[in-house]
């Protein structure tokens, strides 16, 4: 056979998966697909079915139109406002990261990764600890000015929502636009200057046009996130401000009006789909080659007085924005500022660990039937289950995706779909569908990690797939020639290389699960709360103790997330080079 000498062209162009055409490969496919069908498409389909059936039967009441347009209008309004302010902070910050070298830049860069992974309840609790009626700013003002009431009433207002969104999404602008800016060859701007363009003209004629794709993609992404924001608005906006997501939750959980919640969900999904299409259209706009010859060539130290003022002003602003709420949270959780029981008027202040100690106590008037610390235990159990589920499914999916084919492209798109549906919609779908044993929301707590896995799966696959594809086919062939069976090839070649990616995926899904609030708010039962749900409940109760416990739990969650980020960076750094 001549093919023994020269490899056939096809064998090189098409990387072959390890399992030839065996039924095992079918399994790779089938398991994630069945999972998606049962736990994603079925609940989603049920929402649409419910909407169509109930409004077919009853017709569309004019009041229903109002019930949709009101939250929709507010959703768009707050998202636009939040996006505007995010860009106002983010674009100068992107300039800072893209063009300047300054001490502490590495630390600031790490800080900007925090919002990526911090649960909404932690952020909400943080802003509460900073600006709320019991927050630091109000406490200090009351103390300092001898006031009787907290002077700053920012909670339950639009500014609180906008502020939290700016906190969350500035990072996206810094990442997207900042890295494009760093990639932008400084010679292009210099060429414009030599040709007679003054500073602002260089910006208008060269810099901004070249950064346009990055800016537009950041803009749509930020808007999309602001549009679908749930926890921040529920916790910081208060009852007066309902976006589509919050309204879905209220209609489903308080008003028990599932058809309306479903309709809102459908509207929300349609909007998300539209935004995603726009966003991918914009992202598809051809990025021009901007790469400078040397990495970091465009970076310089701030020189003139204006540049220095700009840089340090921006660093201070970002530091304040990112650090002060989290510091306020951690400090407030160990500080007592309340009158002691029985000693009216006398205020005891100072360091205390009471809020943490109370977490282990099951008080009779408690909101839950269990000591609050049980929420932490539940969260960890759910997160562990989520890791197992999402990494296992992600592995199967990534393994089968490693082979390029048209069917696989469809499969890939299917796996990514849960990214587009909001967690709230997912939660709603679950309570509509899974209401009979054995799959009953009320008796089958495993539905929570399943929902979390759906949220985490796209991320896990996105981490695992490139790692699998990166393994050169020749390595596997070399192992096979040396006598390894397909299974041994996988174990000896694929597994060690993919293990690191799997670890990254595991940390990701663990952190996602720990902080997940949207779906969990629908699915968690009072005797099995998760940390975010417990924080939400405690925050919405009166009383210094409840407040302190909420902050204590949020601090615990914050610490765990920060540790995870640290681990993630370590694993990634070790992986690079």
């Amino acid at each position: 056979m001549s093919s023994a000498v020269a490899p056939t062209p096809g064998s090189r162009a098409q990387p072959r998966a390890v399992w030839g055409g065996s039924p095992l490969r079918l399994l790779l496919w089938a398991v994630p697909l069945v999972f998606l069908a049962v736990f994603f498409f079925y609940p989603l389909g049920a929402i649409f079915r419910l909407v169509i059936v109930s409004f077919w039967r009853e017709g569309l009441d004019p009041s229903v139109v109002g019930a949709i347009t009101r939250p929709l209008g507010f959703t768009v309004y707050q998202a636009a406002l939040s996006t505007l302010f995010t860009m106002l902070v983010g674009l100068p910050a992107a300039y800072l990261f893209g063009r300047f070298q300054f001490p502490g830049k590495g630390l600031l860069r790490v800080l900007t990764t925090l919002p990526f992974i911090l649960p909404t309840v932690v952020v909400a609790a943080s802003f509460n600890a900073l600006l709320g009626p019991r927050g630091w700013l109000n406490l200090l003002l009351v103390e300092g000015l001898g006031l009787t009431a907290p002077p700053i009433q920012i909670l339950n207002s639009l500014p609180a929502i906008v502020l939290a969104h700016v906190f969350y999404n500035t990072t996206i602008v810094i990442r997207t636009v900042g890295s494009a800016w760093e990639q932008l060859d400084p010679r292009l701007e210099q060429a414009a200057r030599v040709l007679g363009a003054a500073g602002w003209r260089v910006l208008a004629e060269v810099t901004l046009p070249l950064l346009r794709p990055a800016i537009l993609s950041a803009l749509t992404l930020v808007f999309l996130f602001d549009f679908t924001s749930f926890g921040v608005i529920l916790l910081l906006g208060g009852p007066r401000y309902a976006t589509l997501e919050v309204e879905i939750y209220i209609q489903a959980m308080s008003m028990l009006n599932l058809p309306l919640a479903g309709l809102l969900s459908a509207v929300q999904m349609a909007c998300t789909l539209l935004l995603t299409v726009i966003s991918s259209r914009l992202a598809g706009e051809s990025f021009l080659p901007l790469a400078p010859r040397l990495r970091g060539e465009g970076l310089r130290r701030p020189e003139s007085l204006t540049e220095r003022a700009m840089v340090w002003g921006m660093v201070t602003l970002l530091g304040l924005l990112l650090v002060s709420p989290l510091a306020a949270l951690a400090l407030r959780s160990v500080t007592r500022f309340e009158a002691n029981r029985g000693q009216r008027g006398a205020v005891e202040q100072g360091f205390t660990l009471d809020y943490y100690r109370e977490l282990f106590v099951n008080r009779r008037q408690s909101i839950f039937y269990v000591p609050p610390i049980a929420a932490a235990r539940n969260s960890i159990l759910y997160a562990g289950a989520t890791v197992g589920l999402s990494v296992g499914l992600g592995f199967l999916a990534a393994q089968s995706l490693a082979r390029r084919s048209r069917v696989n492209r469809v499969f890939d798109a299917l796996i990514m779909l849960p990214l587009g549906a909001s967690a709230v919609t997912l939660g709603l779908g679950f309570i509509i569908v899974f209401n009979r044993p054995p799959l009953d929301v009320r008796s089958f707590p495993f539905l929570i990690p399943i929902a979390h896995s759906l949220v985490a799966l796209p991320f896990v696959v996105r981490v695992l797939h490139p790692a699998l594809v990166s393994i050169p086919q020749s390595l596997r062939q070399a192992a096979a020639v040396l006598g390894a069976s397909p299974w041994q090839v996988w174990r000896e070649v694929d597994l060690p290389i993919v293990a690191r990616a799997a670890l990254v995926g595991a940390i990701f899904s663990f952190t996602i699960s720990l902080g997940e609030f949207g779906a969990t708010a629908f699915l968690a039962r009072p005797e099995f709360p998760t940390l975010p749900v417990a924080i939400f409940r405690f925050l919405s109760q009166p009383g210094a103790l409840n407040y302190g416990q909420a902050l204590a739990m949020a601090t615990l969650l914050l610490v765990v997330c920060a540790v995870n980020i640290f681990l993630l960076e370590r694993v990634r750094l070790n992986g690079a080079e």
Partner: protein
Amino acid sequence: MARSRGGVVLVVEDIWKDYEGLPLLRGVSLTVSRGETVCLLGASGSGKSTLLRIIAGLERAERGRVLWDGQDLRGVPVHRRHFGLMFQDYALFPHRSVAQNVAFGLRMQGLPAGEVRARVAEALEQVNMGGFANRRVTDLSGGEQQRVALARALAPRPRLLMLDEPLGALDRALKEELAGELRALLRKTQVPAIYVTHDQDEAFSLADRLILLHNGLVEQSGAPAEVYAAPVSPWAANFLGLSNLLPGQVLALDPLRAKTPIGVFEGVQVEPAAARTLPPLRVGSPVMLLFRPGNARPGGEGENRITGVVEDCVFMGEGFRLRLRLESGHLFTFLLKEPLETGGRVTLSLPKGDVQFLMEPDGAVGREEK
């Protein structure tokens, strides 16, 4: 004499510049006259490009002045200097067409649209790119990009044109073709120009005047032929491709003779055209002997004879290039009219005018400073 066609327009005085804590330029001075093309020649990392960027105003020198027509340019921002700068990799605006790139500088001057169009067309004609006005610059070949970049730099009629290794990224044949076009264009437009390169052939073919930059200082300056005929230092000789160098010691001053490991040679000390003064030769001074490759002849009697083994002898069109391994181990290159057999032992004799006595210039002491 350098072919200067008018008064001095650009004066660069005593420029000092550090790069990452180390001195890069250490007191560079030069002038450019009206209509003159000056080639700044130096190894990579010698600070040539940095000097251009300082003149353009893109970087600030730690010390020194840049003057145009007697006016100090300190405080004049880049965009008001009205200089042209062609970047090494052209820095064409990828989001604009060929014509829009060329029009940029004209628009910045606030010229009316009609005139901009006419001048763009004219500039593109000048570089033989007339038919490319509406093309995307990202679709152009390297040579085409080079031409567009030149047109963009020339279109606003700058009072000084600076070119930073403009042919660096191109292949040999294209390089020669474009160098020819460039030479013609510089002659025609009479724009004073500073041309930075590390390729001496390019510099020879374009320069009215050559400036050798070495160790942060001007090593030598003069017309290409003068510099080639009389390199001022061993480094300059070597950099220009004259690498038959041998250390020796002065034996006598009249006639000028020196002792080397391979014998005694009689030679000359050529007065360099410009740049720094040389220390006076004394008996006993260490010198570097340069054996020019062009006029060696096999055989001969007396002094000025070099003996070695023929490593190879290659036909080069106009003659044969001989590589000779000396007894001292040095490998010398000569150009001969007749071929010699490889592996054979041969003795060459050189006219005394082709043995040049070189010394490290005065700056040598200062150069060792940290």
